[in-house]
């Protein structure tokens, strides 16, 4: 909490500093251009109204999904989960500048009513030869297009089910190093390798205390490949493949915590893998009319974790046996600009086409898939403001049976300050 407060005050201070800096006075010809060594600063305000038909928020329903279970977001105050009613989802402060001829850097701080958190603090090399680039610091992993996007850049208000359930609301956002290589191929072919600390609360949970062994970081390794053919005209396509492996530890605590007779501890590894693609058509028309984006992806995981400790001596014969979780999910979404500034989107998702669990006792269980369908309508008044209405309907396979949940979002996103970039 203290660190959070520090970050928060730091942000306020730097904003004040930026305000008191001399304003850029446009100069006439001859003595221009005006140069500022201050970082580019922008602020994104992301708010939403949320309604759902279930007894509890969808986040809690997802925590009870059979097979995917064990989703505790404890310690992760800064999640993007929605509460009924008005939500100040996030205020994002973005500072970006060249460091020197060799590096550029940016820091992104997310603030929500629970506090402030550093979302990204990145240094990127700009002068390495042979198409190489190193990114270091805290960042969203680039293993997939979706994971690298910030919440306000998504084409839908909420994260896809499979990413939310397997990676958590924040996705893979880790401290570490990334090496990427733009290959000399005649088309776009980018390969990346990431070595990350592995502190994700959901996918690569790590405790390293009590009965769970300490494992030195970095604990998460990812590799990915992105390719895009040289399409002509207004078409663009990119596909990606990725895989990664990291330490995963689970604490299953009973009602009395560590002293509970039912509490047990598992330690092992988890693989994740998958693919994604995006196709974009940009018509020769103004205001996004006729623009079309189709994107889809697959994400799977296999966790193989050993029972290392059990408070109940009657279960000690199972120590050393493995719990194996195999789950996956798919999404496909399309967005079409049907009028100037207006877009309509549809998204379909399934979760758990593969949904198996092998317990340490050797018992194997299979669970049903869940699915969700979403429709979205948004209106961007300008590049800097967007209003969105989104409806979801899903059917979830939870421990308490099949549950149907409908959701409605009314979202408003505003960006202030430096011009936002148009990432692909």
């Amino acid at each position, binding site marked *: 909490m203290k660190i959070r407060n520090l970050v928060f005050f730091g942000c306020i201070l730097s904003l004040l500093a930026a305000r008191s800096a001399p304003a850029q006075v446009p100069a006439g010809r001859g003595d221009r251009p005006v140069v500022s060594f201050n970082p580019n600063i922008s602020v994104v305000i992301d708010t939403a109204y949320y309604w759902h038909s279930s007894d509890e928020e969808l986040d809690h329903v997802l925590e009870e999904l059979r097979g995917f279970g064990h989703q505790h977001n404890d310690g992760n105050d800064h999640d993007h989960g929605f509460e009924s009613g008005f939500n100040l989802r996030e205020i994002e402060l973005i500072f970006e500048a060249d460091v020197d001829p060799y590096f550029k850097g940016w820091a992104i701080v997310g603030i929500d009513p629970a506090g402030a958190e550093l979302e990204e603090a990145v240094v990127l090399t700009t002068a390495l030869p042979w198409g190489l680039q190193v990114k270091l610091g805290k960042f969203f992993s680039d293993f997939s297009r979706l994971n690298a996007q910030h919440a306000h850049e998504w084409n839908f208000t909420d994260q896809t089910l499979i990413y939310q359930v397997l990676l958590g609301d924040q996705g893979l956002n880790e401290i570490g190093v990334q090496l990427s290589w733009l290959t000399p191929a005649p088309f*776009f072919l980018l390969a990346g390798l990431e070595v990350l600390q592995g502190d994700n609360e959901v996918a690569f949970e790590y405790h390293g205390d009590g009965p769970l062994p300490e494992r030195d970081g970095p604990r998460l390794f990812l590799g990915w490949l992105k390719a895009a053919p040289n399409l002509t005209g207004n078409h663009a396509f990119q596909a990606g493949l990725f895989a990664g492996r990291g330490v995963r530890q689970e604490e299953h605590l009973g009602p009395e915590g560590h002293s509970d007779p039912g509490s047990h501890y598992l330690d092992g590894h988890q693989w994740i893998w998958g693919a994604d693609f995006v196709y974009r058509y940009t018509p020769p*028309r103004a205001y996004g009319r006729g623009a079309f984006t189709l994107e889809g992806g697959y994400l799977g995981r296999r966790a193989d974790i050993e029972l290392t400790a059990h408070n109940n001596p009657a279960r000690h014969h199972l120590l050393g046996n493995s719990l194996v979780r195999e789950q996956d999910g798919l999404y496909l979404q399309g967005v079409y600009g049907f009028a100037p500034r207006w877009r309509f989107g549809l998204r379909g998702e399934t979760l758990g086409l593969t949904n198996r669990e092998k317990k340490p006792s050797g018992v194997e269980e299979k669970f049903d898939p869940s699915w969700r369908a979403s429709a979205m309508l948004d209106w961007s008044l300008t590049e800097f403001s967007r209003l969105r209405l989104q409806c979801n309907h899903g059917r979830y396979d939870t421990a308490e049976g099949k549950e149907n949940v409908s959701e409605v979002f009314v979202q408003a996103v505003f960006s202030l300050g430096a011009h936002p970039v*148009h990432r692909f």
Partner: protein
Amino acid sequence: MKIILNTLLIVALAVLTFSNGARAGSQRTLNIVATTPELASLASAIAGERASVRSITAGQEDPHFLNARPTYMVMARDADLWIRMGLELEVGWEPVILDGSRNRSIRVGQRGHFDAGAFIPYVLEVPDATATRAMGDVHPSGNPHYMIDPYCARAVAIALADRLIDLDPAHADTYRDGLKSFLARLDRAMFGAGLVERFGGDRLWAAEAEGRLWELIEEEGAEDDLGGWRGAMRPWKGKPIITFHKSWSYFAKRFELVLVAELEPLPGVPPSPAHLARVIDLARARDVSLILKEPFYPVRPARFVSRETGARVAVANTFAADASADGFFKLMDQIVGAFDE
């Protein structure tokens, strides 16, 4: 799992093998990438056979709203020289492409990065310190649609030739010759061969810069020699027109048109009925006879104003359609032609 790893490995190996061969042949000529076709066209005209020149945009889309497609990063990766319009026209995507290209020699400030907007003789509509986003898509360094003023294009060409010589001094003569023939062609296209023969291009452009071209022509009684774009646009001198977007300011300044209003209420904001009603009143009051619109803007608002006022809708692009040496001239011919009925 294994399949994915193996695929990664095989692809990496394959790339290493065939890419070495693919690049070897392109070492000899300069690789130039420009953000728009008219900039590419100047480079083609000056560098000729010495360079392979490509443009990021195809001239059909609004370059302001482009996405940083992966293909552009590959183009930038291979570039020896990157040419941009500047004045924040490419602000939304250029940084993403330059970072993604991992090409350190074309980053902003390097010799391989040519910011054309920094070399034009004057900049229009530089907002003052009170500018905010509430004024629409205002470019903090000024209006970036300067290439449709041939006087600006001329300045860019001269600076670009210098940069090419700087980058590739061994072929300085090629670039000097290229520039010379480009300028000669531009002189004739702008003023007509007769006028150029009589006064020489330099004297005409100097008169143009001082705003005393008509004076010169009148003093010397050279009316009949005037041709080219200047000649074709002469009947429009002082005439009021309406444009869709604020992209015609430089053209209007050069050819002495009066811009009465834009169909967009603010730059980048689509026309609203209330604003169109105001535009119609203005157009009637000022007796506007022409509405200029780029092809990528919707035609309906322009037609509506046309119906109400009797002004003619002319469609003309402010971006060239082709990156060859002819591209810039075709662009200007196309614009000037649109004024003819």
